[in-house]
């Protein structure tokens, strides 16, 4: 294979690596007051990155170590777009007096996790997958502990890195058992060797545990609320959508591609985990008053819904998973955009009581928040309804009607707690609500994009059609 073929297959990775280096150099060259320029540069480069890689590329490199399919190309573009939205809404936090001197580090670290996710979603072997996973999680730990002088941030960082190491050690143990039974680490060769012996089932469960930590599925979710609460809000947003979306796609493609012969074993495992995840997270979310902690439990239950698409285990399941991730990215980032802005104008308060009477003073922000929460809850005209419908349909198609029924019941519970925030904003009276404020231009642009996504992604049916056509190729 000649070098130009490798370049064309890996063009997304190479251009992102170039962007990473440019950001690193720009951080060195630009002086202190130029944090605005740094943010503009980061956003502009990501737009270029999306434009360069909008056309899906397929191909293999390094003897099947790196496999790019049209679907993984699309997923990479979606993740890049989500990162762009995070960069846009981060400005009210990163341009603050106490954190602007390390703005460059924020962009570099975030982009390097994105590069890790790129490798994770298009790995063709467990070796590259493991390297990508670690590249996606080690800089993320630095980001979680980014506010060096805040006790909570340090605590959240500790919890994150120790749990990430523990889970990756469990996963590696599983991978070593797979290597012992199969003699190969390539997904393509592995399928023939996997027969569902007890050792291989143990290995599969350990592997699932490793990714379950990243996705925060229930037995492995204990770190999520603490980390989400302690991390800076923009990092929480990144953690809850981008890193989760990449892990979900990687999990599904590996389970289908490599563990295909063991589908009976893992679909039972995932069915149980899904039901427990959604139910427990919903019950815990009702009890929360801190909005970031609340969003953590909400994101755990959303991860459970994503797992329904994995149960589908075919092209339609893959398409509904990617569609769910896209819709989840816009809705969740809209909520986090509002939380970040309110936090900056409210002395860092993120509890639900701070939002009482919010509609009277800031009608636009509360309108966006309401629509995003409706979408997360799955109320019909918005995109969240359609994405939930498609994941339910794909799990139902695979015959898991009991799981779908329990998830449906849970959707109603989740509506209750999403509407608690809406009630606080519109109905609960408050003598001194938050004063009226105007958020920065970048944040407003980000919120408008999210709003358009929430409204249009559901109505424009050709989004899902395109995805399912690509998935069935």
């Amino acid at each position: 294979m000649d070098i130009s073929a490798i370049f064309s297959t890996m063009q997304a990775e190479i251009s992102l690596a170039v962007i990473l280096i440019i950001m690193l150099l720009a951080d060195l060259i630009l002086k202190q007051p130029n944090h605005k320029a740094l943010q503009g540069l980061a956003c502009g480069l990501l737009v270029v990155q999306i434009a360069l890689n909008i056309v899906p590329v397929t191909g293999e490199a390094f003897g099947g170590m790196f496999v790019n399919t049209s679907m993984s190309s699309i997923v990479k573009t979606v993740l890049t777009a989500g990162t762009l939205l995070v960069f846009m809404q981060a400005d009210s936090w990163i341009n603050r007096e106490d954190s602007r001197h390390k703005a460059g580090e924020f962009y570099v670290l975030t982009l390097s996790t994105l590069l890790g996710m790129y490798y994770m979603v298009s790995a063709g072997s467990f070796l590259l997958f493991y390297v990508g996973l670690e590249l996606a999680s080690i800089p993320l730990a630095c980001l979680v502990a980014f506010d060096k002088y805040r006790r909570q941030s340090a605590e959240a960082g500790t919890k994150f890195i120790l749990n990430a190491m523990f889970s990756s050690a469990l996963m590696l143990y599983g991978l070593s058992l797979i290597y012992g039974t199969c003699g190969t680490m390539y997904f393509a060769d592995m399928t023939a060797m996997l027969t569902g012996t007890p050792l291989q089932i143990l290995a599969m469960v350990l592997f699932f545990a490793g990714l379950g930590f990243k996705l925060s599925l229930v037995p492995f979710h204990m770190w999520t609320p603490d980390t989400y609460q302690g991390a800076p809000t923009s990092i929480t947003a990144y953690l809850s959508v981008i890193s989760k979306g990449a892990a979900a796609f990687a999990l599904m493609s590996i389970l289908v591609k490599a563990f295909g012969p063991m589908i009976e074993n893992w679909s039972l495992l995932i069915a149980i985990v899904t039901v427990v995840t959604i139910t427990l997270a919903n019950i815990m979310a009702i009890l929360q008053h801190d909005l970031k902690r609340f969003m953590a439990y909400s994101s755990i239950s959303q991860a459970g819904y994503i797992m329904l698409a994995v149960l589908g285990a075919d092209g339609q399941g893959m398409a509904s998973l990617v569609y769910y991730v896209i819709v989840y990215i816009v809705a969740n980032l809209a909520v986090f955009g509002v939380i970040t802005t309110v936090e900056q104008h409210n002395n860092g308060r993120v509890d639900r009581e701070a939002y009482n009477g919010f509609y009277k003073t800031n009608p636009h922000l509360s309108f966006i928040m309401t629509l995003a929460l409706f979408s997360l809850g799955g109320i019909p005209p918005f995109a969240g309804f359609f994405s939930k419908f498609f994941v339910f349909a794909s799990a139902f198609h695979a015959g898991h009607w009991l799981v779908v029924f329990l998830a449906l019941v849970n959707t109603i519970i989740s509506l209750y707690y999403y509407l608690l925030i809406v009630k606080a904003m519109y109905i609960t009276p408050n003598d001194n609500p938050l004063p009226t404020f105007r958020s920065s231009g970048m944040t407003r642009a980000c919120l408008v994009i999210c709003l358009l996504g929430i409204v249009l992604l559901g109505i424009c049916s050709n989004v899902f059609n395109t995805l399912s056509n690509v998935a069935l190729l």
Partner: protein
Amino acid sequence: MEIHVIHYLVISTIMMFCGIYGFFTRKNLLALLISVELMLNATNINFAVFNRYLFPGQLEGHFFTLFGIAIAAAETAVAIAIIINVYRNVKQILTDDITDLKG
């Protein structure tokens, strides 16, 4: 006595579960880190042994071991940096003292 693959596997399994036990029971953050290192090294032994005894014709397992060692070192560096930061903020690195976040 000849040393077989089974002897190595017994050692690595014991190491793995010692690590898991330590991770759940120790109170000091550095002890937690040591426990995780024990787990990672158990997997490295597994990879190297499987490659050496079961698939002597290839190198995949040895490469995985090398990557595992390098990445574990990077992880440890970040973890220790964060633990130092915890010490600066809290003046303690016992898990009982870092309980600000709870719901």
